[in-house]
């Protein structure tokens, strides 16, 4: 099937996990028997975000795991995970996630993981700083997950000695760098929560490096040559650090850009798959034009409750304006994967928003441009007053194809891989041979 990049076109939670699981699983099925090879997926590569990602996968036998740092293809034997240099790696959360996978019967998850030595490390100090800063914002919270992702990214911008995965192979340097982060946290947030000392943290991180293979820049190009690779994005395009609705964004490039960079360095290319739900959701605060409290009440999400740091899970109608904006800022997709079609089928009252009433006029397209947070903040203020103009959703797949001008290549009707249906001609496997 070739390499595929999977990106969420909304605010996250559209179902990247289940789509990635499906791609890995069905490719394995198609390649079943002998000869080996051809369509099999060798590895899932993460190219943005960190341990705050929450990609839910339900195996056909009912096992459920919320993938955070491991690739969502991990239930399929043989599929590895590579954390690229764009990932913010949290060795502490990683240990707990590996434990859970092991408990579910996944043999040796850590043995199937590689980490680029350049990847930044998220520490308990970043996490504590994140929580202290978000608490200080009071009602103006950004909807952070409290996992220290933004603090990890911003600390690295200001400090050349920010700890990276490769440092775990040099205990003395690691300890020095961790102590610097701890000192920074203590100075910036004197009233912040207690944190472990740098020595204890360094010991845990060293144990991480002894157990997980830390690799150089040559690893990914080699991986891309050994078989098909699925690039699994985190969060969603509408939360992108530059194109999201500032300041309700994540400190991460959520578009195809990072994956494209890694592929270009390796002289490879991939099909671009955009994931969306048949309706819209947003977890946490920020503009959400098509939000409908009745849907929020009726369509609770099994795996997304109200988070202490994130806030409520909100539900609304399909927002073609926002999705077209997402497609425009990402440069478009080769195909779409639409999830939650079972829900859409059971709710004939779902609608689609083709334009907004905004500033006294009807708007069907949102302005895009090069990175400019002032422009994004102004857009956010306008969106907070925008009203949706609705039409009935009708047949969701046809409506989505018409509204977004891209083919739906994968339809999902439930949480498990067996609930997925590939389209007649546009199977995901065909993505690269168009």
């Amino acid at each position, binding site marked *: 099937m070739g390499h595929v990049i999977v990106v969420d076109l909304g*605010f996250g939670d559209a179902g990247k996990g289940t789509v990635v699981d499906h791609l890995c699983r069905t490719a394995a099925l198609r390649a079943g028997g002998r000869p*080996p*090879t051809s369509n099999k997926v060798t590895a899932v590569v993460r190219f943005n975000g960190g341990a705050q990602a929450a990609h839910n996968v339900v195996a056909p036998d009912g096992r459920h795991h*919320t993938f955070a740092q491991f690739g969502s293809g991990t239930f399929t034997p043989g599929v590895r995970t590579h954390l690229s240099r764009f990932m913010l790696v949290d060795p*502490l*959360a990683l*240990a707990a996630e590996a434990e859970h996978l092991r408990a579910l019967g996944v043999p040796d998850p850590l*043995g199937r993981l590689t980490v680029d030595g350049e990847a930044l490390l998220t520490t308990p100090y970043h996490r504590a700083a994140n929580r202290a800063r978000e608490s200080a914002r009071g009602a103006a919270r950004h909807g952070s997950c409290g996992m220290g992702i933004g603090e990890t990214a911003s600390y690295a911008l200001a400090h050349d000695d920010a700890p990276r995965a490769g440092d775990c192979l040099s205990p003395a340097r690691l300890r020095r760098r961790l102590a610097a982060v701890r000192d920074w946290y203590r100075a910036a947030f004197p009233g912040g929560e207690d944190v472990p000392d740098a020595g204890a943290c360094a010991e845990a991180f060293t144990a991480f490096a002894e157990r997980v293979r830390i690799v150089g820049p040559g690893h990914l190009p080699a991986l891309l040559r050994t078989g098909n690779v699925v690039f699994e994005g985190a*969060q969603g395009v509408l939360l992108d650090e530059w194109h999201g609705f500032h300041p309700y964004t994540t400190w991460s490039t959520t578009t195809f850009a990072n994956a494209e960079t890694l592929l270009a360095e390796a002289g490879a290319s991939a099909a671009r798959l955009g994931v969306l739900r048949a309706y819209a959701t947003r977890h946490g605060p920020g503009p959400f034009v098509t939000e409908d409290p009745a849907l929020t009440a009726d369509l609770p999400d099994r795996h997304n409750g109200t988070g202490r740091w994130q806030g409520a899970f909100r539900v609304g109608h399909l927002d073609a304006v926002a999705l077209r904006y997402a497609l425009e800022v990402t440069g478009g997709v080769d195909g779409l994967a639409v999830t939650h079609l079972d829900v859409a089928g059971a709710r004939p009252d779902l609608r689609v928003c083709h334009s907004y009433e905004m500033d006294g006029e009807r708007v069907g397209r949102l302005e895009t441009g090069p990175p400019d947070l002032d422009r994004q903040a102004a857009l956010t203020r306008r969106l907070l007053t925008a009203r949706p103009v609705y039409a009935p959703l009708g047949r969701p797949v046809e409506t989505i194809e018409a509204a977004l001008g891209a083919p739906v290549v994968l339809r999902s009707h439930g949480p498990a891989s067996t609930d997925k249906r590939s389209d007649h001609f546009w199977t995901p496997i065909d993505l690269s041979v168009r």
Partner: protein
Amino acid sequence: MGSGNWSTDVYAAHASYRASTGASAFAYSDGGATAVHPDLDPRGVTARESRDSADHPESLAIGVLFDVTGSMGTVPRTLQAKLPDLLGLLLRKGYVEHPHILFGAVGDATCDRAPLQVGQFEADNRMDDDLGKILLEGGGGGQMRESYELAMYFMARHTSIDCFDKRGKRGYLFMIGDELAYPKAKRREIAAVIGGEPDEDVPIAELVRELQRRYDVYFIIPEGAYHAGNRELKDFWQGLLGQNVLYLDDLDAVCETIALTVGLAEDAIDLGEGLEHLAEAGSDAGASVSRALARLDAARAPVAVSSTPPGLDASGPTATTRL
């Protein structure tokens, strides 16, 4: 948009990493298994196949079988940990475009629970899973023989490889161990371990001839192993395979040794280039690989354990010997 699902307690993480160390690639064996994993059981297997496909139009079969008995000490575990990197090494510099790698393990049919374990030819990291399923024998007899002849019988008569069948191109077979084979593959043992029954026992020399028609066959003797310095061992394998007996003084370099051997045989590189590639990739295996392969190169000279070719100190690869 996400969550903090997993514990970030520093002490719990530390304990978890420590607890999982070493349990990794050996889950099947360490899980208390006492029988060959069904996926690796040769019994009743018609043929392990390496087939050309749309993605791999010119497959090249490479078999790697290693001794898992007690005399090898910790060698099998090191091999199990190192061999997953083999595929990447072969591909990275284009030594082989479409390798299909099969892993297997050799024991002793006279006394072992797992006299022979053979995975599938795989073109991707799924071969790791085969490695993880290999049962490691703890004991081992004192007779200094293992049933390599059964492994050779299987590879000779129960593999089907397109590289040879379709294109007349021989595959590669590497065996890694420190003992002799039994002189014949016995009918009774073939019937019990593999199934089917030839009319009579098959002498090992005949198996080697059959094998060499379709495979370049190498035997690697790790110098850390128990019998490695034994003269009889060297004479035995050299008698069968001639120059294709390699002595490896650092088992960590096993993947590099195999990769460069294939690269050399495929005419993709000369030894100097191969060693440069290793240095480029940050591998410190160059010196050991160079010693192992320089001996292969110097086949006309008597093999001597301690001879380090001039200019090949630990300082790194400098040899440019052309095979």
